[in-house]
């Protein structure tokens, strides 16, 4: 992604004291600038206002949150504290973090070699393998959930924990393989060939040469996987719902609304606290996110 300016035919900048045509061109350009930015501000309101209203409601009093008011009469910052100290909230937080961190690490460890092999090694059935990867990537998780649940719950007795969600990530993730492979294809072969001439094995070449060059893609995969786990609702609902000690933030948030059923202010405070880590991490890793999304759609 280079600059964010439009392709445009350069109009010669008119000298001061200028012709009518020059002034006209300048005026059109200015009006265009105004139009584009007004539209952008209108769009920005649509994207930002929901966050603002959620945040304002989160600091309203119980009574006011039941009205249609937009602006808090008095600021109840204690609501955030109340939510934070709700029994279970910290546990959900810890569980979510465990699921997301372990899931991300295992996905990276297992998917990188596979993506590399699919991008670089020649073998029979490689195209078939790639088709399978794409198919599993597109597959709704509900297609295989019933037998998977029976497998984890009846054979391994692991229902009521998050392990049925974490362990499979040690055996790759289709989307991560796909994204990494797309990126690895763009790295010229010559780098590895040169390393091999110097007596480097395949594994060492991957670790020493390819991985440092693939950092942007690895960062993007890590972030996507982290957020997939962080946001996952279906998985924890299937496996962890029977045991409150294993709930995650997404699953717990639903029950939170149940426990404080009339309190929109506390519910919105909880919603805000669940969204916060995502937003904070985004500000630190914006570039990696945008690169990741771009890679999936465009590179090839």
């Amino acid at each position: 992604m280079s600059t964010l300016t439009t392709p445009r035919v350069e109009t010669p900048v008119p000298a001061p004291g200028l012709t009518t045509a020059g002034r006209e061109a300048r005026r059109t350009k200015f009006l265009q600038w105004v139009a584009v930015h007004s539209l952008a501000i209108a769009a920005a309101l649509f994207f930002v206002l929901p966050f603002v209203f959620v945040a304002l409601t989160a600091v309203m009093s119980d009574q006011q949150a039941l009205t249609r008011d937009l602006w808090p009469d008095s600021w109840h910052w204690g609501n955030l504290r109340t939510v934070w100290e709700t029994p279970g909230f910290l546990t959900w937080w810890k569980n979510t973090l465990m699921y997301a961190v372990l899931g991300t690490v295992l996905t990276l460890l297992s998917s990188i070699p596979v993506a590399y092999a699919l991008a670089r090694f020649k073998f029979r059935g490689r195209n078939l393998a790639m088709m399978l990867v794409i198919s599993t990537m597109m597959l709704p998780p509900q297609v295989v959930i019933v037998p998977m649940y029976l497998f984890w719950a009846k054979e391994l007795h692991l229902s009521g924990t998050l392990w049925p969600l974490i362990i499979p990530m040690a055996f790759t993730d289709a989307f991560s393989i796909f994204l990494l492979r797309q990126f690895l294809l763009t790295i010229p072969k010559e780098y590895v060939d040169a390393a091999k001439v110097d007596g480097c094995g395949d594994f060492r070449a991957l670790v020493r040469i390819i991985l440092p060059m693939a950092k942007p893609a690895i960062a993007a995969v890590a972030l996507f996987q982290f957020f997939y786990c962080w946001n996952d609702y279906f998985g924890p609902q299937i496996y962890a719902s029977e045991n409150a000690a294993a709930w995650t933030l997404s699953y717990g948030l639903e029950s939170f609304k149940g426990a404080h059923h009339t309190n929109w202010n506390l519910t919105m405070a909880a919603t805000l606290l669940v969204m916060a880590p995502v937003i904070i991490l985004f500000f630190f890793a914006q570039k990696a996110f945008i690169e990741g999304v771009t890679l999936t759609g465009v590179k090839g």
Partner: protein
Amino acid sequence: MMSTATISPGLRHKRRRERLRNLAFLSPWLIGVSVFFLYPLASTVYFSFMKYDGFTPPVWTGLKNWSYVFTDYPFFWPALRNTLWLVIIMVTLRVLFGLGIGMLITKVKTGAGLFRTMFYLPYLAPPVAATMAFAFLLNPGTGPVNNILGRLGLPQPGWFNDPAWSKPALTLLAIWGIGDLMVIFMASLLDVPLEQYEASSLDGANAWQRFVHVTLPNIQPIVLFAVITGVIQTMQYYTQPLIAGKVASGVIGGSGQQFEPGYPDKSTLTLPQLVYNLGFQRFDTGGASVIALVLFVLAMVFTAILMRRGSGFLATDD
């Protein structure tokens, strides 16, 4: 003399080592795809012909589950109709808005980074949190949106509480989270060669003609990609309609009665919700497996289209 069968021992040794190396690199995926995809898929097919409640041993019932789902299960056809609605309206609007916002951001000269961040952030909001937020914002009684509509003298819809408005409300939520599409459209728009715009400008093309004859042909593979991945996401649509229905019906935060999926009036039902409802609430493994296979077939049809038409963005070889 030397036939091809007797390759030098050195070469044969090298090939063997290469095969072992390939196997080693691919082994996590080979195990994963067998244990977590092929085996459960085969089981789903098996269970679709069985009467099985998850406790007593399965009994063969032939096509009974299939005929039950297609003729007697009152939720199946509404769910499929909703999916069709969402595919046509929600996916189309998402692609149009994504393209529109993507084009807008390429034209913004002041504060482009800030605008981009604001447009992108909702995409990252956890679906449960985003849906809870929208259920509150669009609450017909206390929500700020109807407050504002009321002040402007506009009609105030029932949103998630009105079967006619629940899918539009979900669509609004989906358009809010358009950041991913904005980014891929923005990137592909910036890749359109400048000379083509210049040439068509010299030929006297106006902005609309430049869009139709230069921009669209160049970004066509990305549009197709966005449409098909959008359709597949719609097949999996689960968390948002479920949470929206639960909050609006008062099951979350209400008297805690049994939730009948699809509130209001089956208008937010989707196929994945039926898999959960049949398989995990009504212990009808057979029926859930039938729905799962319907989902599988639909998803695979769209994936096949993607792979056939999408060679432009699925890099195949070097």
